[in-house]
């Protein structure tokens, strides 16, 4: 590829983003809830040189009736399950903060970072649906401003907890009998509108210090949080030109927020279906659409860019995205996971060599905000 700095992730949603993708003969739908399915999917992506895997999640069952894929495993669980089977790929489970405790999320993602030797990320999401609110029965459904204000606070809590142990807190000092230097553990004492959390974390600082945070910028509320907090900002756009304009807007906003835009990657969603020819791809997608109708309702929000065609066509598109600064990377979303995964190796990307996800993104490992002196 002309510009190898383009970041290429894949989003693995069940048997594919298309709700009828399970009906393909090659879908492995029977295995969807097994560890083997997910290990195979993520290791295949890793071997194809994909930089990271996004794992979607939700507390709501998929709508659409008996004809669509229903059910989903906990995304952090899936990421942990595949951690030991993979060695280079970044693992980005979605986890919603609306009903979950930030203390739990903080240790879950930090532990994923330990289990993957520094490859953990977290896509922060919110639970917009009434269904999720009723499934918890703890509070009412919230509007976007309220949801993302809460998410903003949750990220702050999690981020402080990740820093609450300095890197060299464990000392094992036999003469004094001390296992830790408690002066290197810190109460975070966060008090906000949604949480008050004392800290410190029970989990020591993880290999990356701060795992990678991703946020999908879909509306003003989520965009504001993404600009303030994300390492990876996901966008959806109807055309390459719209994506390029969106990226420029985000970079302006990042500068205004006193952040270096070159330390944040804007990732463009790209729905894909790969086949031997453009015509074959179109025929196969038509088959998926016919299976799905009339069960699936049109998706809300911007319909993402699509590439339905050959792998070499995708290669040219990625080249164009890199060359024209349309985005800093893409999130490939296979309409049907198995055929796409089988062909991704044809992109000819180099195997992953970076030791941590941060390293792969060219980001330094941050010092704990509470550290008083540089670590040894």
């Amino acid at each position, binding site marked *: 590829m002309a510009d190898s700095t383009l970041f290429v992730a894949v989003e693995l949603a069940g048997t594919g983003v298309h709700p009828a993708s399970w009906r393909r003969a090659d879908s492995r739908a029977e295995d969807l809830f097994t560890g083997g399915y997910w290990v195979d999917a993520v290791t295949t992506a890793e071997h194809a040189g994909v930089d990271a895997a996004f794992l979607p999640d939700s507390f*709501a*069952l998929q709508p659409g009736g008996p004809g*669509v894929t*229903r*059910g989903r495993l906990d995304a952090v669980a899936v990421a942990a399950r595949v*951690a030991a089977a993979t060695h280079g790929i970044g693992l980005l489970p979605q986890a919603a903060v609306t009903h979950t405790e930030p203390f739990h999320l903080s240790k879950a993602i930090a532990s994923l970072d330990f289990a993957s030797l520094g490859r953990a990320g977290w896509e922060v999401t919110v639970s917009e649906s009434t*269904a999720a609110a009723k*499934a918890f029965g703890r509070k009412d459904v919230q509007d976007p401003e309220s949801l993302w204000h809460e998410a903003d606070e949750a990220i702050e809590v999690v981020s402080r907890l990740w820093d609450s142990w300095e890197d060299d807190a464990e000392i094992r000092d036999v003469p004094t*009998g001390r296992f830790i*230097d408690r002066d290197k553990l810190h109460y975070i004492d966060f008090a906000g509108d949604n949480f008050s959390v004392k800290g410190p974390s029970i989990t020591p600082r993880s290999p990356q210090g701060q795992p990678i945070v991703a946020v999908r910028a879909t509306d003003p509320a989520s965009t504001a949080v993404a600009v303030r907090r994300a390492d990876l900002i996901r966008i959806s756009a109807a055309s390459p030109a719209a994506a390029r304009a969106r990226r420029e807007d985000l970079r302006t906003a990042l500068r205004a927020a006193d952040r270096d835009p070159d330390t944040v990657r804007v990732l463009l969603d790209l729905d894909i279906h790969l086949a031997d020819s453009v015509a074959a791809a179109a025929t196969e997608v038509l088959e998926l659409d016919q299976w799905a109708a009339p069960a699936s309702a049109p998706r809300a929000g911007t319909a993402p860019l699509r590439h339905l065609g050959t792998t070499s066509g995708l290669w040219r598109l990625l080249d164009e995205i890199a060359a024209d600064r349309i985005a800093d990377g893409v999130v490939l979303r296979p309409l049907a996971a198995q055929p796409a995964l089988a062909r991704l190796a044809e992109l000819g990307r180099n195997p992953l060599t970076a030791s941590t996800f941060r390293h792969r993104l060219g980001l330094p490992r941050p010092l704990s905000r509470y550290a008083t002196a540089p670590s040894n």
Partner: protein
Amino acid sequence: MTPRKQVHLAAHFPGVNNTTVWADPDSKSQIDFSSFAHLARTAERGLFDFFFLAEGLRLREHRDRIHDLDVVGRPDTFTVLNALAGVTEKLGLAGTINTTFNEPFELAKQFASLDHLSGGRAAWNAVTSSDAFTGENFRRGGYLEHSQRYQRAAEVVQATRALWDSWPDDALVVDRAAGVFAHDVPETQVRTSQFDITGRFVLPPSPQGYPVQLQAGDSDDGREFGAATADAIFTGHGTLEAGQRFYADLKGRLAKYGRTPDELKILPAATFVLGDTEADAHDRARHIRLQQVGPQTAIAFLEQVWGRDLSGYDPDGPLPEVEPADNVDITRGRVRHAKDPRAVAQAWRAKAEAENLTIRELIIEVTARQQFVGTPAQVAAQIDEHVQADAADGFILVPHLTPGGLDEFVDRVVPELQERGSFRTEYTGSTLRDHLGLRPPRTAHRSTAHEGARAS
């Protein structure tokens, strides 16, 4: 001849406490995944039933400061167990998860995910939080009254089971030709004193239906709750006589819940020390206890009862003459030792005087738990004796070294137990319920207790 009663063994990861001898040169990280993987693989090599992981939600404090003498720092239970599912094939994966600071729908999804991803190896030790101190890390806070915490625990179990039961057994179809992935999933409603949940659960029935339920309470209420709902009880009653009394009591409570004695396994926690000779083993045991209860740790234990600063006392000298303070809780984040500090102090003084013990020696005595000490053949005989005499169905072993503390046991004691005909020579099933000899739970529950939760 009737076959010998079979011993069940599980491995406890030595986490945050003074069991772990962290000063030993062979003591490695308590947080790196490689340590968990090593212990779990060793347990699986030894054909153990399960790996057990405890949980902490707030760092322990002593005299208003973070306790710094014992091992501190542990990972998230679910994340570690799911990751271990990737490096083991048969071993059960058991975790303590608190019912006070988690919500039923999320817990149900997390445990069902672990059970699916591990192929039916999940177990849940459901506990309640000890105090508002822990609550300071959660938005729920610490407002829940003590009595309500147990009510909430029971309702969390009820709600998670209702959710796990909510997909009919034949709901997942995957019929490509007919275009049916899954039949409609009915809405589950759970309305209890603390929950008002209405939702469609997100996963089909997992291999075990429910995770294996572990329970650890020892009060009368706790024993009753265990008899009604638990698959295995995790106890401290490790000595032969105390074990037999507890065992008979628990198994005797099962009939009123329509359960048979083999539906509940009694698994006390126990440590072990091996040696080439009996004398060698006892020497090693003594050395390990001295490492576990160092001078500073001995004073800290004493301060837990006395409720005051005793740092001026010599750990190798006599117990303090000063009386304990009343109702001063100077250790937070761990179950308190003494309900009546003055009575405990009196008893400890009497014991120290009678046996001529220093502070440190006394603490070593009074904090000891069931320990099997001897040659591998002797330790196998002791364990077997407890099981054959109905003092236990097996043990949850707590090694004193991370992560290699189980290696010698698996290499040397397991073959002795196998030779006695008391321990499996291969896994005969693939789920944890198989290992424990438990029936699949779903059918029984679906027709009885849990209809109420769904219909209410």
